[in-house]
């Protein structure tokens, strides 16, 4: 059992002249569900592919399940599950056959789990994969990635093509996996609401770097919008720690900070004789504020 399931150190990946990952570092402890959040084109897929040894970084080191990601041993690969953004399934094969074919590659394949999931998710076993709907194909790909009960499950935009009820079911499965013990899940998304329930940690990918990694609760505790009202005219720019955005209009100011604390509020109140109203921000609002720098 590895304590750190994935470690990336100063990883750069350059396509042409564009650095998609730029000296990025990230360390994910075992047993966590991490939501990887970033805009379209931020490099989420590239990061995941580097973690899986499917893409080779130009600089830096990636260690997955304790091994160099680019040279994973067969036994490490037995511990990985991966669902790419658009899963490739053999269109001529029946679902039932794809399942047994995939299962034959793994030492530890759990047919009971696979049967349960295919039944729960109404995956038609006798249909050819080429005739599955997008949602069905996505669910099948997920079953194939779960069948060997991997230690690390990597999902690239897993719910993008699922309808709301299938999405909810899917998120439940992720929660089950998380609750089952020391297994880890990394999933990328740009849909913040998926993350809020399921993830216990968030990694935010921005300009090729991880701009935040930590507990979702901590992120919400730290980033707040402060509404200042003062009897005096406030300065155009307030010198405060961790400012993401600020706007002053006369005696009022609106400040978003990433360093919220009760002490900070005290400081503002005494420095500008202002009353401060603290506004909570949800993940979507935080995401937007972070991208507005």
């Amino acid at each position, binding site marked *: 059992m590895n304590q750190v399931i994935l470690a990336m150190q100063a990883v750069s990946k350059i396509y042409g002249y564009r650095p998609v990952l730029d000296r990025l570092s990230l360390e994910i402890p075992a047993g*966590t*569900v991490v939501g990887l959040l970033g805009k379209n084109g931020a490099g989420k897929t590239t990061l995941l592919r580097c973690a899986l040894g499917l893409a080779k970084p130009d600089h830096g080191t990636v260690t997955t399940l304790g091994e160099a990601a680019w040279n994973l041993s067969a036994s490490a690969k037995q511990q990985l599950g991966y669902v790419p953004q658009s899963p490739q399934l053999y269109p001529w094969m029946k679902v039932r056959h794809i399942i047994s074919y995939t299962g034959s590659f793994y030492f530890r394949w759990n047919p009971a789990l696979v049967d349960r999931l295919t039944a729960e998710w109404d995956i038609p076993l006798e249909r050819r994969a080429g005739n599955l709907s997008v949602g069905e194909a996505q669910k099948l790909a997920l079953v194939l990635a779960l069948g060997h009960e991997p230690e690390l499950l990597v999902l690239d935009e897993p719910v993008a093509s699922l309808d709301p009820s299938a999405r*909810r079911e899917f*998120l*439940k499965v992720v*929660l089950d996996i*998380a*609750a089952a013990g020391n297994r880890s899940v990394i999933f990328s998304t740009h849909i913040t*609401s998926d993350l*809020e*329930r*399921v*993830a*216990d940690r968030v990694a935010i990918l921005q300009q090729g770097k991880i701009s935040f990694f930590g*507990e*979702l*609760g*901590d992120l*919400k*505790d730290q980033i707040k919008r402060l509404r200042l009202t003062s009897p005096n005219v406030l300065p155009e720019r307030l010198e405060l720690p961790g400012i993401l955005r600020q706007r002053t209009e006369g005696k009022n100011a609106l400040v978003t900070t990433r360093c919220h604390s009760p002490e900070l509020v005290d400081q503002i109140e005494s420095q500008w004789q202002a009353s401060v109203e603290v*506004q*909570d*921000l*949800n*993940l*979507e*609002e935080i995401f937007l504020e972070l991208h507005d720098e």
Partner: protein
Amino acid sequence: MAADFLFQVFPASGLPIYRQLVDQVRRHVASGRLTPGDFLPSVRQVAIELEVNHMTVSKAYSLLERDGLVELVRGQGMRVNNRPDNAGPETLRDRQEQLAPIARQLVAAAYQLSLNEKQLRQLLDRVLKEFNGK
């Protein structure tokens, strides 16, 4: 008590889910719905019923434990502590005070939406009806 009777989480709120759980346990103790000796539902049960990550629930429970509101009884779970401030419901005034910040936010938002007092009360009545109908 079933977890979904005890708790209601709003994942898309700016208040972290673990804080919502902590606040709600405090409120149940304040109201006397939870009394000393009662057990909270297990972390696993809450996680499954509310469909939230179990680490989030653990975090809420350990904060409650740290603050002395509950204690861990081996093999049985989290028990509401028998201590003076947990004994019986708090006064009406104290309980109203706990809700005051939310009420202020509500009134401020109503003002921004140009809802007058009567219209706000109408809304509250409707929401109360929905809640009682559940």
